[in-house]
């Protein structure tokens, strides 16, 4: 058996937590030693339950390792163990680091990374903020870490790719088992753009429910800080924020409407002391991060400047277009509100909205809700 196959074996055991596996490693130094331990040896090892011992001696699990290795070779999945030099330094220092990481893409040293997380269901506001902040952060050379889930996660990855930055996706399943399936394209894009996808789970692992909270500790573990964009009251993003606090990472949150269910979690975080974030600089000033200095922020304006920017925007638009843009800026999103507040007929408004959309000034969210996207 190859050395790597012992590692695969050890990391594929069910019910053996990362912490226990790590402690075993610390004691015996090498997975092949653990592989060779007899039942008696294991019984004399502290901290192992009956179940753990059974699993460690399970011959089925041992027989499967070869096949797993083949899958890895076929799919170009690589593995790094915790004793290797290139294992992410930050992750090594958490309480329960994964003993091995499976990855695709480039596992070089990611100097400075921020996790951008949020709920799978988003509002237009959340989507906009996720895109904007991850774009700005990666423009400054920050690596964006997220979980490849639907909603905020995908938007954060995309925002980073749009800026030509590097992004890391941490999965809660084996890397041959992309979840959710719709993001297979994004998965490929990340690897193609010299990014990284990683998972602590060996190939073949399905996206089990309990994998995701565990996955969240890696997201925060490899990052310097965690930015929560939108989170409901009980949300996986709050677990990530919790992990971040345990691991001594900074927690940032984007404020939202206090009545909005999707912002309750983030507002609660701010109340408990997470840093309120209005723009990318708010995050970077917490770190002594040099990054790319001579960079003109795209979205970084004070509120005053924003209104000035919109004034610039109004140039070259027709009176009706400005009228409609103004009511959208003032918070009318659906077509009925826009019609009522702008008192423009339905016949004209539809085409004006479309023209504004084509000019890239407004966007449409599911449910035909319009929003200014500049």
């Amino acid at each position, binding site marked *: 058996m190859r050395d790597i196959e012992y590692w695969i074996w050890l990391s594929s055991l069910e019910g053996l937590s990362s912490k226990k596996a790590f402690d075993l490693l610390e004691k015996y130094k090498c997975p092949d030693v653990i592989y060779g331990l007899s039942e008696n040896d294991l019984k004399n090892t502290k901290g192992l339950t009956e179940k753990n011992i059974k699993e460690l001696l399970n011959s089925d699990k041992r027989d499967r390792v070869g096949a797993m290795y083949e899958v890895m070779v076929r799919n170009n999945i690589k593995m790094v163990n915790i004793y290797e030099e290139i294992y992410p330094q930050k992750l090594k220092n958490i309480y329960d680091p994964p003993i091995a990481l499976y990855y695709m893409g480039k596992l070089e040293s990611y100097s400075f990374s921020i996790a951008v997380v949020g709920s*799978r*269901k988003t*509002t237009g506001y959340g989507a906009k903020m996720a895109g904007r902040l991850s774009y700005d952060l990666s423009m400054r050379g920050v690596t964006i870490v997220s979980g490849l889930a639907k909603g905020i996660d995908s938007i954060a990855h995309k925002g980073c790719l749009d800026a030509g930055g590097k992004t890391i996706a941490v999965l809660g399943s084996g890397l041959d088992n992309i979840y959710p399936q719709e993001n297979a394209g994004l998965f490929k894009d990340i690897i193609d753009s010299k990014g990284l996808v990683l998972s602590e789970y060996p190939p073949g692992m399905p996206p089990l429910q309990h994998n995701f909270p565990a996955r969240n500790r890696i997201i925060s573990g490899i990052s310097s800080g965690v930015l929560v964009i939108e989170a409901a009251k009980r949300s996986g993003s709050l677990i990530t924020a919790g992990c971040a606090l345990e691991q001594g990472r900074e927690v940032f949150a984007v404020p939202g409407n206090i009545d909005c269910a999707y912002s309750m979690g983030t507002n609660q975080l701010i109340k408990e002391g997470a840093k309120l974030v209005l723009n990318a600089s708010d995050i970077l000033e917490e770190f002594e991060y040099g990054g790319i200095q001579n960079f003109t922020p795209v979205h970084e304006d004070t509120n005053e400047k924003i209104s000035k920017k919109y004034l610039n925007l109004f140039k070259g638009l027709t009176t009706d277009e400005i009228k409609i843009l103004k009511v959208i800026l003032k918070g009318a999103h*659906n077509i*009925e*509100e826009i019609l009522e507040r702008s008192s423009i*007929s339905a016949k004209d408004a*539809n085409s004006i909205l479309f023209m504004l959309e084509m000019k890239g000034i407004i966007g449409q969210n*599911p449910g035909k809700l319009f929003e200014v996207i500049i």
Partner: protein
Amino acid sequence: MVSKVKSCALLGIDGCIVDVETDISNGIPSFDVVGLGDMAVRESRERVRAAIKNSGIDFPVRRITINLAPASLRKGGSMYDVSIAVGILVASDIIKNTELSLYMFLGELSLDGSIKPIDGIISMVCCAVTNNIKNIFVPETNSDEAAVFSSVNILPVKNLNDIIKHLNGDKIIPSYLINVDSIFMHNTKDSLDFCDVKGQAGLKRAMEVAACGSHNMLMIGSPGSGKTMLAKRLPSILPDMTFEEAVQITKIHSISGLLPRNTSLITHRPFRNPHHTTSAISLVGGGKQCKPGEVSLAHYGVLFLDEFPEFEKSAIEVLRQPLEDGEITISRVNGSITYPARSTLICAANPCKCGYYLEPSNKCSCTPKMVQQYLGKLSQPLLDRIDIHAEIHPVRYDDLNNEVKEETSAVIRERVNRARRIQTDRYRGLGIYSNSELTPTLIRKYCELDRNTSSLLKMAFERLGLSARAYDRILKVARTIADMDDSEKIKSEHIAEAIQYRSMDRIKI
């Protein structure tokens, strides 16, 4: 003695002349009906015998044979009773008038000799008109329905003796006349009017476009946002009905037994909203008698499918062909029948299982996967037949309470009429009546875009990730919007508005 009188069978919504031949001869007394009749036809012997006896006439105790010609056509129903009785009376010389080739006899007999109403009278009268039959005896209750065509004499009768007296010249029945124009005038007022709907200007516009081009429409909105309320009012803005349309609608309802008694013509456009537990058969029609289904009952009107994703998948999918062809052919053991089915389909759906996905209050408790699965039930081929997608947003309290006068249906209908007239003129001789029926070839001919407009459309496709199948739909709807604008050419604002009605085609995150 042999006699021959005329009656009528039903083939789909059309009638077919049936000759009822009666032979009375010596021999062992018997009474037979031949000519592929069903149970109801065979049982008519007993009704006829009792009716003749109870009308005070001796039933001939001889060998009686009735033939319903053409003998190869399957016949069902009780409408032949009167003609069989008259045939016997003529053959036994009770009725002296033997020149009956210009008469048709319709109706079911009661045992006491009175004549009961039957279904499908209008189709039969229509058939008589085309076959140059001048006088039609109809059950008195059906006389309003029968009198729609002024070119024939409608003779309403209560019982068998009325017919005998009329034909023997003892007591002439005056032919029954109604004023068809007055029915149309009388009935134009709809009880459901668009002015009852407060606000919702955007959706009203979308519905107006749908009405103008007879486009199918999908409405998505949370519970209580007014989907059903608005859909029910769509018939009130559909273009005025022509006499021919009214006759077709009445035919379908009449053969289905859905025509209210003492109604002559249906002058409202039908609105059918089958429940979502309905079966595929009841939607497209079928059963032993090949009855018309909901798509046909909604002919020239509105077929409204509320809670669209809750319908059985099979039930939804059978709608594809009738939506495309405007008719549905049902084949059964008894033969195959084609019913017209040119209706405007309006579907309403919640955006997700709990219904609140699109609400700003975020009450929605569905996971993204559930949302996707819910609307995913709408199959792509079916969505392809729906031109307009519209979102409904709940009305706000201020809107409900305000005193602003909303436009009435009559005003909107006037505009719709105008847009429809442009279309009928343009497509004269092509066999289509509205923009929604345009075929790809005709789209290329009638929906030409100038350079600016087509580059705008191209940009929209690239930016918004519209699917290729949206292309034809957008052009059709844009054609309608241009017609509403009285514009010969499709301008960029028409295309722009049409694209706004394709929200289901946009790529989702």
